């Protein structure tokens, strides 16, 4: 696969909760090594879109290709697909009964069948990558929100995913802890990780995103580089949202 090819390719994606359609036919491409930033008002379907990408939600129609593999086709091996897709949640979702290292180790041992010592070495390396090797043996309750989210990032990275999905990674954090998480995300981008980020951190989007996607009411309104979306939006709806978001 070429370097500039789309790593994530979504076409005609629809999702319904009962009678309500929350995603109304989305087409989206995220290129390898790029950070795609998804913005939009709450309830617009941003998180749902992300959760379709590893089938935590079942799309009602459409196709999602990751690294050329159709993850929406019937009979797709979800567990194999999911370990290639790292996911970071708004509320961290660390396992409270395991240490930071234990959180990172679990899937390495149970999914990738690594030995305890192998898994331990990887866990320590990944925790080091997010600046938390000194906290490996602490439990989530002993860590700050920012530290917990960094452990969650390490947990996802440990499986060497092809792509990382971030679902409002800083929304549950106190303002002074947001920076440390964004710093880790920027370092990941510099390492060439392909990322899709749902977030309200507009300033971060401006400086770090390669592509910004504005979604409203289950549809993509506008897609473009950050300069376009934030400085020169082509659609009135985008203009209103950006003006309001930056007040």
């Amino acid at each position, binding site marked *: 696969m070429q370097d500039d090819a789309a790593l994530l390719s979504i076409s005609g994606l629809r999702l319904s909760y009962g009678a309500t359609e929350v995603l109304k036919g989305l087409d989206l491409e995220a290129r390898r090594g790029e950070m795609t930033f998804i913005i939009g008002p709450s309830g617009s379907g941003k998180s749902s879109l992300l959760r379709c990408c590893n089938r935590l939600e079942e799309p009602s129609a459409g196709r999602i290709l990751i690294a050329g593999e159709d993850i929406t086709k019937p009979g797709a091996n979800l567990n194999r697909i*999911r*370990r290639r897709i790292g*996911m970071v*949640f708004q509320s961290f*979702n660390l396992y409270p*009964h395991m240490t930071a290292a234990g959180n990172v180790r*679990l899937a390495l041992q149970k999914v990738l069948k690594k030995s305890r010592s192998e898994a331990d070495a990887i866990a320590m390396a990944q925790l080091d990558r997010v600046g938390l090797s000194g906290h490996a043996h602490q439990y989530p309750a002993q860590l700050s929100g920012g530290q917990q989210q960094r452990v969650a990032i390490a947990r*996802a990275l440990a*499986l060497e995913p092809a792509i990382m999905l971030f679902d409002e990674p800083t929304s549950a954090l106190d303002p002074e802890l947001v920076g440390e998480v964004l710093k880790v995300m920027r370092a990941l981008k510099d390492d060439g990780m392909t990322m899709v980020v749902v977030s309200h951190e507009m300033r971060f989007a401006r400086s770090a995103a390669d592509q910004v996607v504005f979604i409203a009411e289950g549809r993509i309104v506008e897609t473009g580089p950050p300069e376009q979306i934030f400085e020169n939006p082509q659609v009135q709806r985008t203009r209103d949202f950006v003006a309001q978001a930056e007040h």
Partner: protein
Amino acid sequence: MDALITQFFNLEIMLKAWPMMLRGLGMTVLLCLAVIPLGLAGGLIVALASTSSSRAVRWTTAILVDIFRAVPPLALLIFISAGLPFAGIRLSPFAAVCLSFFLNNSAYYGEIIRAGIESIGDGQRQAARSTGLTALQTQAYVVLPQAIRNVLPDLVSNTIEVVKLTSLASVVAFAELLYSAEMARSVTYNASPIVMAALMYLALLWPAVRFASSLEHKLKS
């Protein structure tokens, strides 16, 4: 007062009954070692089935749980030991007790563990599944350890009830602690062995009761 002491706290009688009572206590412990693990295992299956994604499995489980929670354990035991032989199924008293306790306790333990599973937020499951863990691995390594911890005081309390309920086995002539006390009482025409049995239950269960209280305390803080 004297009559009370001779009839209920007669040391001489107690000493005489001691070997028989000790055997009875041994049988009670043996019974507990069989029915508690059986009930916990059954309860785990019930809990997993009642949180299953299949509606048919959930409903079937709910009906069975309702039935076995509503039927008095003594009635169930008598039916199994006296009724089943008419269907050609003849169980030893020990097996009959084990079966009836399994049915009854699985329902109770199952409800407790289910409450524990339901206390674990969906985010935990989603995080586990997003790293490629299967549904079963997610239950085993992520959900159940937290769920069991959350309901540990209830599990211990229920276990204490189960231990006391093993005295029901006396009605099918299984020579556990209460049955032995009854035998001793009928041969000595003296109720002291019953008091003795009560004291033995107390000695057996008091540490468990304390443990349950301290657990509850610890989890609350």
